[in-house]
């Protein structure tokens, strides 16, 4: 198995509340893993630990076999971890296209030296970036909105932009935090298609979702978390066959 991302015994507590308790799991290239569980189970916290927003009290995180636990946030993204946010977190005063243009792994736009001394190479790079961004927008059906302010878009489309922005990171790992919440219709189908395509291209994808049909449709396997611990991993059918888990999740 071509393991892209793995964690080993991650532990994190906030003043008595344990959000991650001995979390060990991995995602391989081409896999789409569903991360499910009740609210407060620690799913988003796990994403935060992996992407570097919070540091674990104990445990390791590996990307392609190399430990990334010591890397600050921005370096983990450059190493290849792309993620979306539950609350989208787009750059509100910018257009859709502008949101994408600051999102690639290596971005010459963030260097003032390249701005001043980059010359022709800099301009060409910016042009390539623009093409790439437009390509992703086209792929997601967002091309007509490219010059619109993100705040002008309906919520569902904003979520699409969030995913598009994450796709600008062409790294091996994609973490999607509740991409379907508040989304329906064509946006729903678009995201499903995109996720399949990315996995097919060799990415390791992990999706936090409450939308069970999405999980059933898409995920090769799932991980059930509660109280910061992984209760069970397996196929979606196996998980939902476990009465204890469905009781925990649905209360029935």
């Amino acid at each position, binding site marked *: 198995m071509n393991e892209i991302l793995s964690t080993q015994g991650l532990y994190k507590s906030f003043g008595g509340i344990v959000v991650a308790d001995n979390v060990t799991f991995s995602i391989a290239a081409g896999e789409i893993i569903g991360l499910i569980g009740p609210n407060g189970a620690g799913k988003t916290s796990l994403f935060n630990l992996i992407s570097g927003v919070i540091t674990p009290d104990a445990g390791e995180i590996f990307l392609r076999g190399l430990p990334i636990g010591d890397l600050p946030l*921005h370096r983990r993204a450059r190493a290849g971890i792309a993620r979306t946010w539950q609350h989208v977190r787009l750059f509100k005063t910018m257009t859709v296209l502008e949101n994408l243009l600051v999102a690639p792994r*290596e971005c010459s*736009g963030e260097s003032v030296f390249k701005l001043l001394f980059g010359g022709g190479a800099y301009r060409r790079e910016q042009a390539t970036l623009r093409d790439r961004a437009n390509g992703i927008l086209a792929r997601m059906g967002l091309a007509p909105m490219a010059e619109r302010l993100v705040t002008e878009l309906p919520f569902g489309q904003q979520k699409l932009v969030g995913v598009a922005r994450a796709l600008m990171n062409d790294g091996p790992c994609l973490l999607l935090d509740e991409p379907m919440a508040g989304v329906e219709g064509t946006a729903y189908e678009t995201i499903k298609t995109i996720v399949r395509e990315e996995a097919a291209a060799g990415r390791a994808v992990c999706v936090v979702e409450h939308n069970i049909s999405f999980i059933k449709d898409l995920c090769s396997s799932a991980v059930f978390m509660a109280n910061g611990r992984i209760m069970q991993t397996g196929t979606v059918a196996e998980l939902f066959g476990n009465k204890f888990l469905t009781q925990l999740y649905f209360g029935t």
Partner: protein
Amino acid sequence: MHYIYSLLVLIGIYVTLSASFNLIIGNGGLISIAHPIFFALGAYTAALFAINFGVPVLFSIAAGMIVALGSSFALSLPALRISGDYLLIASIGFQLGLVQIIKNLDFTGGAGGLGNIPSVLSGETRDIAFAVGSLGMALVVVLIIRSIIRSPYGSAITAMRDDELAFVSLGRNAMAIKLVIFAIGSGFAGLAGGVYAYYYLYLSPDQFEILQSATILTMVVVGGMGSTLGPVVGGILLLALPQAITFLQLPPSIMGPLQGMIFTLLVLVFLFVRPQGLISTKRLHR
């Protein structure tokens, strides 16, 4: 006539200070009141190079700019490691401390000030040259800042302002951007300082105290943070309006405080009536 020219020189200097301060605060979101200190560093450096080493005017002003730019890291590096809010307090301390040091060192002339700055040109030529130079400097600085903001780098800055966590999670080095913006803004303040030193030919620590800082700060806030034109308007308005009563020929003991009251009252009014600034743009920088 001399009065008009010196007002123009002053406007040029203040617009440069406002615009560069706006880059730091409005665009970069870094709240610091140490800007006048870099203005002072630029002024003193230029003066000292001129007096002690006979360096020609353009080079000593450039030296002032470089020293201001470089020393900005002494404040930004330690302070930003703590938090963005902490920068304000650290900058207060930095400002107070450096003014004290200037007051107590001999080679800076101490509290008595630094005079004997070699004069460039004389008479009306001098006035015209400095007015043109100062306004030219302001124009160039405003244009440079504008083009930075409109570049991809400016987009990065805006994104950082909008949501820093999301920004950093994309792979961007926000700390580096903040340090650079702070340095560029401070460098321009140093540039203005050099021009100031050569025009007024006399520097003293009182000119750079904490209240001067607040003055520049208010020009930026009243003018409108984040917009290019805002601080320009704010600078001109807040400089000119209090001056408007000079023609009333009141005794200085009334004139001084009255001008101060007009200035502060204007700021308070604008702060509450038009908090977004005189010139605000819906999208921060375009």
